[in-house]
C-alpha cells in the first residue's frame, strides 16, 4: 500500500505566486495521469478555486467551543475563572462568571472542572470547509469566517479530512498538494509539517529574499526537504544576481518562472496555464519554465502512480 506523496507550496512573503504554482503543479501531475488532490490551506484567503474556476460544494461548518454559563446550575464559586489560562472568564465575587469569547482558547478546562456542571459548550461557527472538482483535480478548501481569529482550527480540520481519506482510501490519490497562507505562523507550520516535500516560492527582491530565508529556517526546523522556485525571475534583470545570492546562502532551487503576460491572462481567465486543453502558447516563456520545473520535480521526488 502506497500513501500519496504530499507536497507543500509555501513562501513566507505574500503575493509571490504560491497559489499559481500549487494549481499548475496539480494540473501538470494530472496531465501525466496522476490522481491529484489539492488542498487550499490559506483559509484566511483561499484563492485556488478562482484559478481553477471551480464551484465549491459540500459546505460544512467548522465549530469551536465557547463556554456558556447555565445560571440554574452555577454556584458562583469562581473556580473556572481562577483556572482559566487566558483569563477568558470574568468573575466578580458572588456573581456569575462572564465568558470573553475573544480571548478564549477553547481548551475546555472550565467545562471539565466545573464542580456543578454549570458550563455548557456553546458551539460557534468560525468557518467552513468545502470540496470541489475541476479539470479532474479534487479540491479541499477551508474558509475562515471574517472577524474570527482561529484559522488554525480550520487548517487542522482540512488535515484531519486528508488523514481520513488516506486511511479509508489510500489509493484514491497519488499526489496531494498543499497551498499555504503567507507568513510563518501556526497555519503554515502545520501544513509544512504534514508534507513530504516543501516548495517555497519567492521573487527576486530584497523582501523576497529575506522572507524566503526565514521560511527556510522554519522548514529546516521542521526537518523537511525543500527546493525553492523563483517567480517573476526576469524582473528588472535581477535573476542571475538573485540566484547567486541564493546559492551563497545554500538555497537549492527547483527552477524559475519569468514574467509572462500569458500567466497574468490565464490567472484572470480562471484557466490554469498548464491545463492540457488550454490554448496558451506551448513555446511561451511561462509555459516552458513550468515544464522545466515539473521535470526537475519528477527527478527530485520519486513519485509513483
Amino acid at each position, binding site marked *: 500500500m502506497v500513501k500519496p506523496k504530499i507536497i507543500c507550496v509555501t513562501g*513566507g512573503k*505574500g503575493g509571490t505566486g504560491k497559489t499559481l504554482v500549487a494549481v499548475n503543479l496539480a494540473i501538470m501531475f494530472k496531465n501525466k495521469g496522476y490522481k491529484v488532490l489539492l488542498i487550499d490551506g490559506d483559509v484566511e484567503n483561499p484563492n485556488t478555486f478562482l484559478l481553477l474556476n471551480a464551484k465549491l460544494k459540500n459546505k460544512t461548518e467548522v465549530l469551536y467551543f465557547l463556554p456558556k454559563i447555565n445560571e440554574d446550575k452555577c454556584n458562583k464559586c469562581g473556580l473556572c475563572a481562577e483556572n482559566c489560562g487566558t483569563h477568558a472568564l470574568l468573575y466578580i465575587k458572588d456573581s456569575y462568571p462572564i465568558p470573553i469569547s475573544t480571548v478564549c482558547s477553547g481548551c475546555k*478546562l472550565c467545562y471539565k472542572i466545573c464542580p456543578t456542571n454549570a458550563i455548557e459548550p456553546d458551539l460557534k461557527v468560525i468557518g467552513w470547509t468545502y470540496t470541489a472538482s475541476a479539470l479532474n483535480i479534487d479540491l479541499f478548501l477551508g474558509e475562515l469566517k471574517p472577524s474570527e*481569529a482561529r484559522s488554525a482550527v480550520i487548517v487542522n480540520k482540512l488535515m484531519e479530512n486528508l488523514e481520513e481519506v488516506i486511511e479509508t482510501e489510500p489509493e484514491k490519490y497519488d499526489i496531494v498538494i498543499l497551498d499555504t497562507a503567507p*507568513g510563518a505562523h501556526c497555519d503554515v507550520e502545520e501544513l509544512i509539517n504534514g508534507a513530504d516535500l516543501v516548495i517555497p516560492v519567492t521573487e527576486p527582491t530584497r*523582501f523576497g529574499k529575506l522572507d524566503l530565508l526565514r521560511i527556510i*529556517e522554519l522548514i529546516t526546523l521542521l526537518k523537511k526537504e525543500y527546493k525553492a522556485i523563483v517567480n517573476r525571475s526576469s524582473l528588472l534583470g535581477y535573476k542571475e544576481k538573485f540566484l547567486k545570492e541564493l546559492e551563497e546562502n545554500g538555497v537549492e532551487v527547483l527552477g524559475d518562472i519569468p514574467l509572462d503576460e500569458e500567466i497574468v491572462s490565464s490567472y484572470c481567465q480562471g484557466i490554469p496555464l498548464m491545463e492540457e486543453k488550454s490554448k496558451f502558447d506551448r513555446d511561451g516563456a511561462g509555459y516552458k519554465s513550468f515544464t522545466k520545473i515539473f521535470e526537475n520535480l519528477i527527478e527530485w521526488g520519486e513519485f509513483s502512480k
Partner: protein
Amino acid sequence: MNRKKIAVISGKGGVGKTSLVASLASLAHKDHDVNLIVLDCDVDAPNLALILPAKSKEEVLTQDMYTTKKATFLEDKCTQCKQCYDEHFCEFKALNWDENNNIPIINYLACEGCGACKVLCPESAFEINPVKSGEIISYETSSELPLIYGKTKLGSTTSGLLVSEVKEHANHLKKYEDTNLILIDGPPGIGCPVIATVSGLDYVVAITEPTPSGIHDLTRALEMVTQFNIPFGIVINKADLKSASQKQLNSYIKKSSHEILGKINFDLSIPEAMSYAKPVVDYAPESDASQAINSIYTKLKHVLSKL
C-alpha cells in the same frame, strides 16, 4: 490633531502594503503637522526595516518577548496513570503518549500553553512556563523617524500576541509623547495577527490590485474591518493592469460606495526604488507613482482630520 492610529492592510499578500507604508511614512515625517511613529506588525515576515533602516546599528534596541506559554512535563511527579491521555486533557492534540517509556510526551508546536493539563493532572506533573516568542526591535532611521517592529521566533505560535505587544510598546515611549500619528504596516490575511493589528485603530487603509484574488481577498478584509466598526479607505495598486477583473472591481466599488483614497498605476520606479531600499517618493519623487502617493497622503490627512 490628536493622536490617530492607522494601518495599511490588504487581505492578499504582495499587493504593496510595505511599499505604500514606507512612502506614506516618508511624507508624513516631512510634514510639520505630524509627529510620526511607524510600526511593522507583519511579525511573521517584517520587511519595512529594509526600506527604513536604522541610523546606526549601535542604537538598535532589541527586547526579547515571552508572550507564549508552553507546558513542561515533570517526570518525577508522574505516576503513569495515563489519565491525561485517556481523558483528552489537551484539546490541541499536544499531549501524546510515549508507549516505550510509558509517559506523556508534549508536542511543543501544538501546545497552546492553556494550562489544562497542569490543572487536571491529579499529580501536578505538568508546569506552564513562559518561553521566548520573539523580539521587539526599535530604532530611529537616518532621518530620525522612530520605527518599531516585531519578529516572531519561528515555531512559537504567537503572532497575534506579539502584534499586540508591538502596539503597546509604541504607547509607552516617553520620548515620543507628542506623537500624533501611528502608522502600521499590517500582515497579510484576515486572521489572528490582522485582527490584533486593527483592533483599537482609528482608520484602516486597504490596498488591493485589480485581479480576481486581489478583489476576493479585499472584500474579506473589509468584511472583517466592518465587523470591528473601523472606518476605512481603499487604495488600488497596479490600477492600470490589463485584467478582466477591472470591471468587477469598479462595479464592487460603485455598489459599495466605499471611499477611494487613490489609484497607483503600474510603475517600474516602485520595484527600482525597492532595489535601492528606498521609499519611491524619495527615490523618484517626480514619478507617476510618487505623485499618486502624494495625493493619497493629502487625502488621507484630510480624512483623518475629520475623524
